[in-house]
Structure formats: structure tokens, C-alpha cells
């Protein structure tokens, strides 16, 4: 292609980018004989830099809930996925913040589910134990949740449905956190393997 012979750089501003063959091959790291510039391992090692950029953008996001609501969510985290000798719990793993950020950018209907759900939970705690949910004793809080969890596979009320949703999101948040995924589940993946995984155990 005669145009590439002068090695002209592609223009990127103001015009459509027409890339010359030479620029492209250099960028992609393809040598004329078709080799690769970087090995898999080298490229893999660069991935954290990109992610650090993303993390900086993410942490500035504001939350949705009031301090009281957040306290209730933190209490739910403690009850549903507590810390134990194996691993931190959902609260320690930052799940309340995660939920706060996620609900902030969620649809109005989702926000309504959480606002109403937390309010219903408060009302239920007041009615059954005469106090706000977060200030009940541990055993009382567990009784409240046990009552809600009774029908978790076929919820009868809005509050029972809210329990199902809160449990789901708390668990999803926890098991995608570092504590949940790597410490608790002991997830081994997201790394560099020299060959395809295969079943090492004998068939049972």
C-alpha cells in the first residue's frame, strides 16, 4: 500500500483515524514474522496498574443510606455472615459500604425495596421487642431474623421478601470481597496457569 511507505503517524484528533500499516504493527507488537511482543506473564503483570486507576475512581462515590439505616445494614451483615475463626464477617469486609454505594446508583424501584424493607424491619422489631432493631440484644435480633427466614424460599410478606433480598446482596457483596472470596472460600483462581485445570480426584 503506497501510503504507508513514508511511515506517517496516524492523526488522532479532529479527523477519523486512518492507521497506517507500519504504525499498527508496531502498536500491536506483531513483528513482520508474526511474533508477540510480550509474553502472557508479562502482560498479566501489568494488569494491576489498570485496576489501580479504576479503584481511585470508584472510592469517591457517595452513599444512599442514612447513618441509622447503615447501622441496621451493618447489624444484618453481622448476623447473616458473622466473623468466625476462619475469616472476617461481612461487616468487617466492608459490605455495608458496598451496599450503600450500589444502592445509590441502582434503579428507584430497588432503592424503594431497601428503604421500605429497612423501615418494615424497624417496625417489626419495635412491635415484637419494643426497641429499634440495631439496639436489640444479639439473641433477640437472631429471633427476629429466624422468624423472617422461616419462609425464605416462599416469602409471604414484603418484609420476608426483603430478608431474602438483604441476605442475597450481603452474601454477594461478601463473597466478592477479599475476605470472603480469598480468605473464606479460599478461591484459588484469577492467576496464571501453564495448563488447563482438570479433575485430579478419582470419580466418586
Amino acid at each position, binding site marked *: 500500500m503506497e501510503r504507508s511507505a513514508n511511515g506517517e503517524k496516524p492523526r488522532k484528533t479532529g479527523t477519523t483515524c486512518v492507521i497506517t500499516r507500519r504504525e499498527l504493527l508496531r502498536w500491536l507488537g*506483531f513483528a513482520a514474522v508474526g511474533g508477540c511482543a510480550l509474553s502472557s506473564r508479562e502482560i498479566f503483570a501489568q494488569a494491576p496498574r489498570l485496576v489501580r486507576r479504576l479503584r481511585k475512581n470508584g472510592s469517591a462515590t457517595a452513599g444512599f443510606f442514612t447513618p441509622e439505616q447503615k447501622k441496621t445494614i451493618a447489624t444484618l451483615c453481622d448476623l447473616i455472615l458473622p466473623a468466625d475463626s476462619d475469616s472476617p464477617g461481612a461487616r468487617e469486609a466492608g459490605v455495608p459500604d458496598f451496599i450503600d454505594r450500589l444502592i445509590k446508583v441502582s434503579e428507584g424501584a430497588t432503592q424503594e425495596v431497601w428503604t421500605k424493607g429497612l423501615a418494615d424491619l424497624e417496625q417489626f422489631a419495635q412491635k415484637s421487642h419494643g426497641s429499634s432493631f440495631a439496639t436489640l440484644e444479639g439473641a433477640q435480633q437472631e429471633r427476629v431474623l429466624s422468624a423472617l427466614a422461616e419462609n425464605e424460599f416462599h416469602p409471604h410478606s414484603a418484609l420476608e421478601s426483603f430478608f431474602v433480598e438483604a441476605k442475597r446482596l450481603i452474601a454477594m457483596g461478601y463473597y466478592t470481597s*477479599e475476605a470472603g472470596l480469598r480468605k473464606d472460600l479460599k478461591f484459588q483462581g484469577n492467576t496464571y496457569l501453564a495448563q488447563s485445570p482438570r*479433575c485430579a480426584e478419582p470419580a466418586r
Partner: protein
Amino acid sequence: MNFCEIEPSEFDVGIVGSGAAGGIAAKELCERGAKVCVLEIGEWKDPSKVFRSHAWPFELPYHGFRDEYTEGLYGDPAIFRYSSVGSDPAPYVILPAVGGKTLLWAAHSWRFGRRDFRLRALQGIGEDWPIGYQDLAPYYDRAEEFMGVCGRRDSLEVIPDGRFLPPLEFRCGELQVGRALSKLGPQFKMISTRKAVNTMAHGGRPQCHFCGHCSRGCDVDAKYTSANAAIPAALRTGRCTLVTGALAKAILLDSTGNRARDIVFIEVKSGRERRVRCRAVALACGPVESARLLLLSTSKWFPQGLGNRSGEVGKNLQTTINLGTSGYLKSLVGGRVVNDDGTDAYHGTIPNPYYEKPHAKFPNGYLINVGSGTQLGYGGQLDFVSAVPGFGRQYKKNLRATFPALVTLGCQGQTLASPTNYVDLDPALRDGFGLPAIRMHYRLGESELAMVDDMRKVMRAILEAAGGVVTSSDRSGGIDYSHYVGTCRMGIDPERSVLNPYCQSHDVKNLFVVDGSSFPTYPEKNPTETVIAVAMRAAEHLAEELRKGNI
């Protein structure tokens, strides 16, 4: 190169789109001596910079639940506006970049079976292809050799064997599911999933490192994409001019109305209109956009759209329907956690069990993908947290024990062409570029619904036969936005088809549509390998016609 410098040139072929079909067509044409201009609406994406595949979920602001992994890759819906009508609205998604949706595909690569080309002859439905398996076989060979497809020679008619790189291995859950299938009958067999992934280095690209993140983009190019293989091959010939940031808006004819002559396009960054002159035009925008481009290209000779004398452009829209079921295998609960990442999600596939003998209640076929273990590639694996009862310490212990036992089945089913399913131009809505927007029309038919019912029953039966417990099952079948085909179907009769068997327009001899638009009927298998084989064959024919001076 200054952009307006391409205007005075005449190219042998102008190709619109650099995805699966466009990339291969460019390579094939350039390698045969044609001077080609490829117009691509998007830009280059540098895999080592743009893909977030190795990011941990907790390094992302929403742990990946707001599509952070593929953020910025798919087209902004505020710009790529479209409408979708019908009782089962079909989604439309574009990936505006060099390589298109091949950047994020899971690379499943299957040949169609012999019967898949002859649905009308065998079952009285749909339309037969005007070509058969034997016509495509040499192109399947070349496609697999070029892409690098891993697999095993399984000797099954439903899924013909090809030329493969070493097969993927089964994880323990997949193995257990595979062994249980004989309880359901001899038509259920699990084979190693075939993918365009380098289980060994191939084509100048490295071996896969089995991180399980194919669908987030392969940052080392071990997975075939149009951007890492086909387009570079075209550019290496020195005969390919790739123009990025170029939105094609119309094909213009010459003064006789018999030949396509110019592709009119908009420079995305400036909004300026440009044109490129070609001896022949090949559309490869994907079945939705290729149909739209023809419908937008009206003239006094083609008031209902270029190449649309049959009225079939936009019609016969088909895709696959997906339904998943997840669970866990009791015998693997409490097992040791190992690294089960491999390639994205599935290493096993049960080919269409109804290939030899269709189901009594529906003619559609479907395949069942099988994935197991602690790999999180698909994200949906975590749904099991809602299926384990209770809360507190014991709940946490139970989840931990269940994690290594997870298994997911994913059905992918055939849809039949129907008058209710087509694309046209929305009479009112304009997209972000001021062009009439795409309007999708879709309705799942009775046979699709019967098939989805069967999928659900069969997946449950498989999991239970394997000693598993079902934890969740999709409520309804999902329409797959990445498998649309059929909108410019090929055929012998110009009154009932848009293209001839070489993907050449019946109405305009120098106009080709080389993507999946040409498929008359479409089985349950992923379309891309067949798209590439068909595009290779079409490009070879076009190159020959150019060489002979027939075009």
C-alpha cells in the same frame, strides 16, 4: 494519512465492519491481491490496557455488578438508540471497536451438522440452505486452522469433527455430569467444548493461561478475535486501508442503477460526511446493521432498500434462546478447593440430543453447556448464596463447603424464522447520529416455548442423575443478542431471497453481504465459525469475479 486522501482512490472492495466476517473477508480479499478499504465505526482497543479481565471484583467500585468489567466497550445506549417491539422484546447490542463483538466472545466454535442445512427437506419448516455441509467443509477446515480451535475428534454427526488444537480438560463436576448422562439415554453425550482458544500457541499468538475470563476480553490474545488475527493479516499484505471512527450511512449506485459505487460514511469525531469509491461493496456489520444499511440506502431504483426487490431484507431474524440451571453436586460438597479456572465457564457440551430424532412436541434443537467448580467466570455462579438456607455461622460454613461442588448447565436453543421476527427502520426514532434507528420485532413462538420447558426439565434430570441439587433456574428463556442471523438470507430464488449462494446480492452484482445475515435457517450452534467459513467462501468468489473482470 489524511482522511480525505482516501476519497480520490478507488478500492477494489469496500468492506463495512471489522468484526468476525469483515476481518476475515478483508484478509481473504487482500491475500488474493484486492485493494480493500475497511470502514469501522469504532476504534482500536489495546487488550493489555483496556481489558479488566484480571481485576479482582473487590478492586471494582461495585464488585463487577454494574458491568465494570466491560465498561466502555459496548456501545453507549444513549447514542446507539433503538426500539424493540413485540411480546418478547429482543435486545440489540453493538460493540463499536475494531474486532466488534469478537473482543468479548466466549469463542465457542462449532461446525453445523449436515442436517442443519436442510431443515425444510427433513422437517418441512424454515428454508433449506442452497449449499450443503460438503460445500462449506473446506472453509471450515481453513477457518479452524486460522482461528486455532481446540477440541477432540468425537465422531458425532451432529457436530462434525475438524482440525483441532488439544482439547480442554474436564473439571471434576463436569466429569461427574458427563458420566451420569447414560441414565438419560444414548442421545445425551458430553464432549469437550470446542473454542477458538489457544490451548497451545498458534497463529503467532500465545498459549492461553486459563484464567477463565474470556468474556471480559483476553489481555494476551490467546483467544481468536478479528482484531488480533484477521485484521492484522489483512494489513500485513499492504493492500488494506482500515478506517476507524467511520459510520457507514448509505451505499450509492452508479447512474445506471445496476452497480454499487460509493459508500457514504460519517466521520464519528467530526460529523463530516465522506465517501469511498469501490468496484465492489461487502457488508459485514452483523445481521442487524447490515440490514439497516440496505434499508437506509434507498434510491429510485430501490425504493424499499438496496438489494431488496424480494422484500426479504430485515426478515427471517433468528438467534438462540438461552436458559440456565445451577446447582451443586452432593458428592463434591466439602471437597478441597482447587483452581478450576480454565476458559470461560464451560468445558463440556452436550450436543443437540434431538438431532437424529426431533422431539415430538417441537422441531427445535438445543445444546447444553456444562460448567463446574470454583471458577467465577460467569458471575452467576454466586447465585448459590440464596439457595443455601439460614444465616449465621452455620450458613457461612455451608456456603464454604458447597463452593467446590458448584455446577452450571446452560442450554442454547434454536429459534425458527417467523413473520413476527424481523428488523426494520423505526419511523420516528433517530439514533445518536441522526439516522433512523433500528426497530427490532420479536416474539417467541409456541415451539420455542415448548423447547424452553423441555430444557428446564432435562437440566433438572441431568443434575439429579449426577447426584446434584438444583439451586436456581432461569425463569424464562433469554434472547441472545450476539447470535442474530438471517436478515439477508441466501437462496436460489431472487423473489424469496436476498443473496445467492456466494452471498452476492441477486439485484446488484457487485454487492455482497458476508456476515451472518445470509443464513436461511440456523440451528442451535454458535454461528461464528460458520460466519467465518461462509465469509471465506464469499470473499474467494468475489476475488475471482474481480480477477475475471465480471464485477
